[in-house]
């Protein structure tokens, strides 16, 4: 019996679903990197490594997952006003995009299951980011990747994408997700679109130890924000 094979004439192959990849098909050797770093916190080190990246790659840009406020920092030396001053400096860097990384980066803060409390936490994060006029996006990464189903639900209702761990990709709802595909302590991939992930400081993939590896990224690479990845590549 003859197989039932036909080409679908309604959708010529040449016109199909190529939009996200068009620019890459023109020059497949040029890589695109969406870089994100966790724990961007006033008084913690790491920014100097990003500046070195910026020196090495003039078009470098990145997304920094930032706790809204670290209550432990509130001392006589580190005041709310100093936090605001820091935010002003951050806002001058147009190559930085901010994304929420919990309220105070406390262990288990997003394991809360009472939705009304979660609403308060997330609205507080949004209020702080708005007050200091961060260039921020609705991509949420829970501190320590720890998050309850209810927190996912609240985030989804408020229009967030959830950043999840490639090494333990768990979700409990159908919230949109963002998953990194390269940890900066690993060899630089040759894959066309790389979603890199590291930390500002310490851990296995902290910028302090991984900067030399980061500098191996091909110099003709394009850098994009996570928001640009989600808009144009996901």
């Amino acid at each position, binding site marked *: 019996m003859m197989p*039932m*094979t036909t080409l679908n004439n309604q959708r010529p192959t040449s016109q*199909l679903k190529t939009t996200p990849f068009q620019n890459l098909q023109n020059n497949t050797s040029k890589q695109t990197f969406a870089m994100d770093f966790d724990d961007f916190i006033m008084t913690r080190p790491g920014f100097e490594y990003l500046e070195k990246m910026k020196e090495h790659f003039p078009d470098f840009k990145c997304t920094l997952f930032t706790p809204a406020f670290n209550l432990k920092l509130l001392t006589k030396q580190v005041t709310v006003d100093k936090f605001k001053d820091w935010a002003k400096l951050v806002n001058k860097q147009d190559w930085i995009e901010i994304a929420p990384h919990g309220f105070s980066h406390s262990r288990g803060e997003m394991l809360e299951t009472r939705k009304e409390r979660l609403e308060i936490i997330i609205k507080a994060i949004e209020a702080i980011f708005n007050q200091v006029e961060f260039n921020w996006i609705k991509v949420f990464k829970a501190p320590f990747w720890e998050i309850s189903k209810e927190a996912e639900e609240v985030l989804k209702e408020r229009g967030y994408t959830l950043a999840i761990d490639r090494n333990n990709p768990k979700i409990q709802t159908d919230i949109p*997700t963002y998953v990194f*595909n390269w940890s900066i302590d690993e060899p630089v991939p040759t894959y066309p679109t790389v979603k890199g992930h590291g930390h500002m400081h310490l851990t296995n993939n902290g910028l302090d130890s991984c900067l030399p590896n980061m500098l191996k990224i091909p110099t003709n690479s394009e850098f994009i924000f996570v928001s640009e990845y989600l808009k144009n590549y996901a």
Partner: protein
Amino acid sequence: MIDPQLRIEINVWLEQTAMKLNLSGKRVLEIGIAGDEKPSGSYRFFGKGNEWQTLDKNSKWSPDIVADICNSGLPSNSFDLVIITQSLEHIWDYKAALSELYRITKKYVIVDCPFMVPMHQDTMRVINNKPLEWDDYWRFTPAAFDRLLKEAGFEKIDIQFKNLNSIALCEK
């Protein structure tokens, strides 16, 4: 609907496999594009810099090629990579499908199948005797899956079993 957790795990595996293979300028085919997150949640990982097409036996999903994967009529060795996920359990003659996958790929096939996963056929059809959309026939242990793939001809098979699902990268 595919369980979101399973879909995430499959997607992470697919993306890591895409990075490992790093195919460029190749021909990629994805089979079975009906269902949620479609057409295709898979080719986006492999589509970059490649020429890719979709195949489904049902024209209503508007695939590039309308064909039955048990007997596609496509030339042998016509794609560098063939991807079929969350579909094998819905194919009655799965051995014919696996043999056809082996025949039409030049090098790689990605295929998965569930084990001990709840039945997910169109149950309304059973109640109302509606025309068949898709049915849910099979479950395989990783060991059975490995053996079926070897019998289909694949020489190199790398299976990951996670969340009650076996997903395999097969090489000719």
